[in-house]
């Protein structure tokens, strides 16, 4: 399908209505997907990214784009930045029209499956073979983006959940880092008594924040073994072990422990929670490792306080669950547009980005979390210049992978519609419209439907992963 052909068809004057109607039939005709390469490995490569903030964009332009162009002078990497929500809608719209950027920044892993199934993403398998990507990237992450032996995207960022805490507040109050449910609940109750909100959380700025909470509770209460069984279909999500986790979230909300209560969770912006966290009126924040990029602005001289922050692993909420345990997941993906006219050059970029371990680790050391790509490295490979708190995330995850003490984030291992239901349905639970049991029952139904359709990423084998 060439542009000139379809254009002629448009201009041939079959009437205005036909103009619109041509769209779906064309889309259907294009459904096959050639999977071949395109271009001669030079020229302009368009990339749309959701990196936000001036400093972060500048870092990407200088340290990534410019460095790549220096190494590959014949390729012009043309980066455009968007806000997360806009980017997703735009890429989706553009992909439907067989246009858009050459390199596609996919949303969470689970939704990239939907894109791949619609044949809008190019097959990366030949490139993976040519460049030897399987040896460079962590297998567990690559396998999650492989269906029927075909690789359709590369994992963009390793995600996990941490429990951030106001270190100064903990020292002042003489609080010890809790490691189990009893010590955590004891601390929460004590904080609450002193007028301090134990856990800061809000879904005002990011509707899907509810799934961060469910990720934490299902992993540290229900446990990764139960999750693995449910994800492979051995047990149902309506199992009491999951229902109880939801009930526990609800009870903490009802006590006002999370975000100060349900009403406030739905209404207080994250910036205000961050400010209160810095001031010490919020003690802890269960959040993803990506939050490390933002948490600093609420502490120290700029925020007019003398406090400092740190993070700890989320305590085990049931004695059967391991501690420490880290969720593993992938935030986003990078793929090549099936409609790209310059696939080879796009693949050159991907290879450069993922292939150079030293450069990748340097980026991880300079910017916390944004550039945490899933590559294999030893703890000693990490540059000494890294912020120790960010460094500890890397070493902890390495250890979790090698010992098998890892869990699963919902936005990577659950299928797309189920993933949406996790946070949409949670709102119903919190407002009392759904019971935890009914929520889990509906979740189980949605999951089975999508599992039957084959919309599931491949789970890493039990035990130590690679």
């Amino acid at each position, binding site marked *: 399908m060439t542009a000139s052909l379809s254009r002629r068809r448009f201009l041939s004057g079959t009437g*205005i*209505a036909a*103009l*619109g*109607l*041509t*769209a*779906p039939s064309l*889309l*259907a005709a294009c*459904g096959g997907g050639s999977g071949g390469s395109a271009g001669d490995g030079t020229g302009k490569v368009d990339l749309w990214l959701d990196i936000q903030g001036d400093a972060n964009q500048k870092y990407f332009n200088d340290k990534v784009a410019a460095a790549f162009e220096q190494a590959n002078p014949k390729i012009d990497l043309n980066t455009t930045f968007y806000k997360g929500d806009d980017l*997703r*809608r735009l890429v*989706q719209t553009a*992909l*439907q029209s067989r246009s858009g950027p050459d390199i596609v920044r996919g949303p969470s892993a689970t939704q990239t499956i*939907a*894109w791949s*199934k*619609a*044949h*809008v993403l190019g097959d990366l398998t030949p490139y993976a073979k040519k460049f030897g990507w399987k040896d460079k990237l962590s297998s567990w992450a690559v396998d999650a983006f492989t269906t029927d032996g075909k690789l359709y995207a590369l994992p963009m960022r390793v995600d996990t959940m941490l429990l951030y805490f106001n270190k100064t507040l903990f020292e002042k109050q003489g609080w010890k880092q809790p490691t189990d449910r009893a010590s955590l609940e004891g601390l929460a109750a004590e904080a609450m008594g002193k007028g301090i909100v134990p856990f800061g959380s809000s*879904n*005002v700025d990011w*509707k899907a924040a509810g799934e961060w909470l469910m990720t934490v509770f299902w992993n540290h209460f229900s446990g990764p073994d139960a999750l693995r069984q449910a994800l492979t279909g051995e047990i149902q999500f309506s199992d009491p072990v999951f229902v109880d986790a939801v009930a526990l979230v609800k009870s903490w909300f009802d006590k006002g422990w999370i975000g*100060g209560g*349900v*009403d*406030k*969770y*739905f*209404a*207080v*912006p994250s910036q*205000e929670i961050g400010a209160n966290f810095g001031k010490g009126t919020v003690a802890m924040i269960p959040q993803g490792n990506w939050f490390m990029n933002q948490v600093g602005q609420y502490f120290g001289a700029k925020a007019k306080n003398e406090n400092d922050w740190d993070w700890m692993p989320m305590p085990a909420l049931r004695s059967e669950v391991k501690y420490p345990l880290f969720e593993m997941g992938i935030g986003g993906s990078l793929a090549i547009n099936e409609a790209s006219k310059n696939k080879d050059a796009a693949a050159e970029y991907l290879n450069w980005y993922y292939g150079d371990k030293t450069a990748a680790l340097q980026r991880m050391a300079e910017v916390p979390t944004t550039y945490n790509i899933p590559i294999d490295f030893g703890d000693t490979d990490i540059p000494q210049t890294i912020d120790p708190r960010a460094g500890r995330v890397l070493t902890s995850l390495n250890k979790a992978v090698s010992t098998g003490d890892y869990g699963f984030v919902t936005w990577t291992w659950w299928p*797309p*519609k189920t993933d*949406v239901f996790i946070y949409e349905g949670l*709102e*119903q639970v*919190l*407002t009392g*419209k759904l019971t935890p049991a009914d929520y889990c029952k509906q979740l189980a139904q949605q999951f089975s439907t999508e599992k039957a359709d084959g919309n599931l990423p491949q789970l890493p084998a039990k035990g130590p992963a690679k």
Partner: protein
Amino acid sequence: MSVTAAPASTGARRARWRAAVVGWAFLAPLLLLNALVVLGPSVATVYYSFTDWSGLGPATFIGFDNYVKAFGDAKVHEALWHNLVWFVLFLSVPMAMGLLGAYLLSQVKRGQMLFRALYFIPYVIASVVNAAVWKMLLSPTSGVLAQLGIDQSWLGDTRTSLLSVNFVVDWHWWGFLAVIFLSAMQGVDPELYDAAKMDGASAWQQYRSVTLPGIRPTMVFIVLMTVIWSLKAFDYIFIMTQGGPAGSSEVVSTLMYKQAFNEYSAGYAAALGLSMTLVTAVILAFYQWMRKKGWEDA
């Protein structure tokens, strides 16, 4: 033009024919452009609404399944109810305030321009900004009312979320109506007022017998657009609550957006959108019928 080719037509018929051609020529740019941008692509959407299209890739024809589903979908029912509540509030509150503001403005000379500009400002500001400001003002921990000791999570409580967003929309909208109504009032023939004064009409009588009839076409127009905009209500809701919490401020357009872009049910979303358009069509048909009965007589 083919006018000259009409052999045996009378002068009157030719004139009518000519008037029609000229009239449609005046309408042509609008209609052609609209067909290209709005109508054509929408027709494609009619096709999608009969498919299980995910929003990406090929689509399978499934007949009326999407429409049947929409009729029975509890989420749709709830959203429709919210649209209705929205419509009633969005029609009454800003309209009343706009008429009041416009009338008062038309009665004063000094400061008229200043007040008009002040009233208009909220409408001038982009929705993203207004929504953000009100999110802060309505915050249950640091907002205006919270600082006055009222403990209410306006946007986070399922009972008040829809009303709160509607309040913000009314706030940004009434000043716009005031300006529109004012310019309509200024277009009313002053002689009519003079005549009314000669007859000894009071200000209230003048308002009722001269001002309101004088701006009636504008008012009817605004009412009709309000119907349409109420059914389309999207941006403020989407920015402030995204239809939440727990669907308590969900309207049909936010539901549709989620179906199309989050849940990969673009076919269903198309069916929802077209159903809403159909509802609007019914209301407009009703309006036409009323008009025929001499309601607008403009």
